[in-house]
């Protein structure tokens, strides 16, 4: 379905709406009306359009008896008054359109101009692209309706004030990025920039507050004003779990993300990365004030970078320097067996093995791992009164240890930090010619280790939570 959701001069509404299907190539929103795509199970779609300071309900309609091979001539306009809006006395026009498809998944409220990224070839009606006289985008040669969209094209668009006047052109072609963790998820709308993408809007979500990623993204797009008016070109999500092909299974929560499904529902390109793989790509663009140097060392030109980050679980990745650019390599090294180095760590392993069947690195070095270590170091009640059921228990343990309020907490943090440092170096060993081994503080460190596919399944002990992932490499 094609609709507009952009201020348009009153006299142009009919033309714009009728011409909308012909302008599917105009994702840059240089026209008075921007084109949207959505699917509606009721073969009917309504969208709000802000027009001259008045809320307009605008849609298009076509002959309901028509076939899927619809031509623009078969579309009809049904105008009627509609109450409400900032100025109830102002005339409001609505144009009703029947959808071209019945396979729908996106309710009207979720329609955004992200759907404008659909190609003409994906439409079920002939498309004739014409140049919009109102456009000031300066692009030409867009009449090739069968030409695929530019992969990483940067579009421009003109915003229009409520009175219909055009304002300064600026890029409205945006990127969506996500960091999907076991506890919380960050979604961000980014604008391209020379140095690095610039955030336009960022919002945090409780991951398990939503049934799936699509619902969360839709909420983000619907609630954010900038997202509603932006053309989403592509999206990339870092997922706390192994990504195989185009899907990912979250390690610590019952979420499975299908990139193809998200792509088909939202209409823009979607790429899934392991969360540490995604984080690794930020390193080359980080500024000096965004890192703290633990060890100056001597960086090797052309070297690789190892990452380690403890959060809900433990993530590790490697950033390979290849032909002048960095390519991230994800791992599930957090699920490798924990290697005890001291007698006390051996005792920890002996204590945890009967409880968990196997002690992987993440069982010790993670936010949850600190709780496990805390229970190991406390044979009597915690003197700091830390409640392990508290959602912030890991932070409370750290605080109690730093304040020296409980010997057991002090030992727990010491064990945790020692194991963290040792694991960071272990991960570094996987990187040939390492240039740096970045860490992200207490519960967010970075490191990397090349994942050894095949070998990770060779253990006689069950791999527990990663067994499904391991089986994929057998």
């Amino acid at each position, binding site marked *: 379905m094609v609709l507009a959701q952009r201020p348009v001069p009153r006299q142009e509404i009919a033309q714009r709406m009728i011409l909308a299907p012909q302008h599917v190539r105009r994702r840059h929103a240089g026209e008075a009306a921007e084109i949207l795509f959505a699917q509606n199970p009721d073969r009917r779609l309504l969208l709000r359009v802000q027009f001259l300071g008045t809320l307009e309900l605008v849609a298009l309609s076509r002959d309901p008896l028509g076939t899927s091979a619809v031509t623009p001539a078969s579309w009809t306009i049904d105008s009627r008054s509609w109450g409400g809006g900032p100025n109830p006395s102002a005339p409001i026009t609505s144009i009703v359109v029947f959808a071209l498809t019945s396979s729908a998944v996106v309710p009207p409220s979720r329609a955004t101009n992200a759907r404008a990224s659909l190609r003409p070839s994906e439409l079920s009606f002939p498309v004739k692209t014409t140049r919009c006289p109102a456009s000031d985008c300066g692009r030409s040669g867009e009449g090739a309706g069968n030409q695929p969209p530019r992969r990483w094209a940067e579009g421009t668009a003109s915003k229009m004030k409520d009175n219909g006047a055009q304002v300064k052109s600026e890029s409205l072609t945006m990127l969506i990025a996500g960091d999907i963790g076991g506890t919380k998820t960050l979604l961000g709308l980014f604008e391209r920039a020379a140095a690095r993408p610039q955030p336009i809007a960022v919002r945090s979500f409780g991951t398990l507050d939503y049934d799936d990623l699509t619902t969360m993204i839709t909420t983000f797009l619907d609630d954010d004003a900038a997202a509603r008016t932006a053309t989403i070109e592509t999206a*990339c999500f870092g997922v706390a779990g192994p990504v195989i092909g185009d899907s990912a299974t979250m390690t610590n929560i019952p979420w499975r993300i299908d990139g193809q499904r998200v792509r088909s529902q939202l209409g823009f390109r979607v790429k899934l990365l392991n969360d540490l793989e995604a984080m690794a790509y*930020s390193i080359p663009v980080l500024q000096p004030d965004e890192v703290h140097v633990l060890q100056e060392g001597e960086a090797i030109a052309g070297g690789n970078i190892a990452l380690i980050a403890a959060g809900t679980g433990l993530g590790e990745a490697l950033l390979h320097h290849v032909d002048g650019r960095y390519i991230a390599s994800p791992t599930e090294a957090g699920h490798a067996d924990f290697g005890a180095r001291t007698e006390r760590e051996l005792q920890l392993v002996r204590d945890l093995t009967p409880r968990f069947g196997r002690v992987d690195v993440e069982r010790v070095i993670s936010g949850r791992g600190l709780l496990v270590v805390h229970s190991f170091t406390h044979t009597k009640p915690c003197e700091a009164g830390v409640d392990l059921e508290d959602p912030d228990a890991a932070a409370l343990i750290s605080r109690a240890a730093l304040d020296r309020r409980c010997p057991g907490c002090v030992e727990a943090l010491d064990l945790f930090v020692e194991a963290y440092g040792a694991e960071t170096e272990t991960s570094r060993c996987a990187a040939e010619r390492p240039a740096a081994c970045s860490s*992200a503080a207490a519960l967010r460190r970075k490191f990397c280790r090349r994942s050894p596919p095949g070998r990770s399944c060779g253990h006689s002990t069950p791999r527990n939570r990663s067994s499904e992932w391991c089986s994929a490499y057998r």
Partner: protein
Amino acid sequence: MRAFNAKEPLERMVQRIPVKVILNARAGLLGAAVYAAGAGPAT
């Protein structure tokens, strides 16, 4: 850093490796945006 560097016989080599803490709490989000902007491998 003591645990990091205690890796005989490679201790001297390990001590020359730069180690940094990332302070940007949204590095994962930024990295995904960097990839979306085209930094990743061409596919």
